[in-house]
């Protein structure tokens, strides 16, 4: 509310002064006088407001008795200092209190290195390398016919003396005995 009042006073003062000059420039003396009066009123109002504000401050400080002033002085002197949140930055780096900082910083650095390694590694695969790898993996690949047993192999297990554990295991998984 006070801010609005101050702004209104200042705005009135400025607008009145501008219109006063404009009216003077146009040879409109009565208008110039009228706006000059507005400027004067606004000026007096603002000056009164400033003086009253200063007087209120003085009055507040004078209202305190000697005892209250003494108490206020004691309170001021014994006021705890405001905590320095970043004091640890001024201490030695060997202290444990910088551990978190190094940990976070180290994490950032390690993440950066890991990202670089990942980017480099993604560039190492080439068509020739993939072909060589496929050849190497060929020896351990699944059989071309898949892992399903054909009827001949299944029937062969019925022959007395045939005992292939691997084929029997596959037959059990397939629900056949």
């Amino acid at each position, binding site marked *: 509310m006070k801010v609005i009042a101050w702004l209104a006073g200042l705005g009135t003062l400025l607008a009145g002064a501008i219109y006063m*000059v404009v009216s*003077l*420039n*146009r*040879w*409109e*003396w*009565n*208008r110039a006088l*009228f706006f000059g009066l507005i400027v004067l009123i606004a000026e007096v109002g603002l000056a009164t407001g400033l003086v009253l504000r200063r007087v209120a401050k003085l009055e507040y400080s004078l209202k305190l008795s000697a005892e209250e002033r003494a108490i206020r002085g004691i309170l001021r002197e014994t006021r705890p200092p405001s905590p320095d949140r970043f004091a640890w930055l001024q201490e030695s780096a060997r202290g444990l209190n910088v551990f978190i900082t190094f940990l976070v910083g180290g994490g950032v650095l390690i993440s950066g290195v890991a990202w670089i390694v990942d980017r480099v590694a993604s560039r190492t695969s080439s068509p020739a390398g993939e072909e060589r790898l496929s050849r190497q993996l060929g020896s351990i690949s699944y059989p071309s016919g898949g892992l399903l047993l054909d009827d001949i192999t299944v029937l062969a297990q019925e022959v007395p003396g045939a005992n292939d554990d691997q084929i029997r295991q596959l037959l059990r998984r397939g629900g056949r005995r």
Partner: protein
Amino acid sequence: MKKLSPGRIVLGSIGFAIGIIGVLSLREATLSTHQAVASRGTEIVVSARTHGGERGQTLGEMVEAQLLTCRLEVTSDFGGSIEPEQVGEGRFRARLVPGLDETNRRQFRGCVEDFMIDHLQIDVVEMTQIT
């Protein structure tokens, strides 16, 4: 005493210069400098309106009173009929002889558009020189 920094001195000098220029400009704008005029007269058309005026007074009377008052500020007089001729709704025409010079035109226009008579507002619509 507080020491003045170069920035403050520059700002103060700029403000001082602006103030001086403003005052000189205002003085120049409000200074009467009359010259001889070749024109035979100056025709003026005004638009007038009233709000809350006295019952017994017409708009024409009020306009006439203000124009006669303002005529006293310049060196010309109304040619022909003193009463301004009504040319439209709220519009009046008058002729001043001899013609007004630049300063008188500004002065007369300022006077006519000023707050002279209560409840009356006049705007100058046209001001032409008659050769």
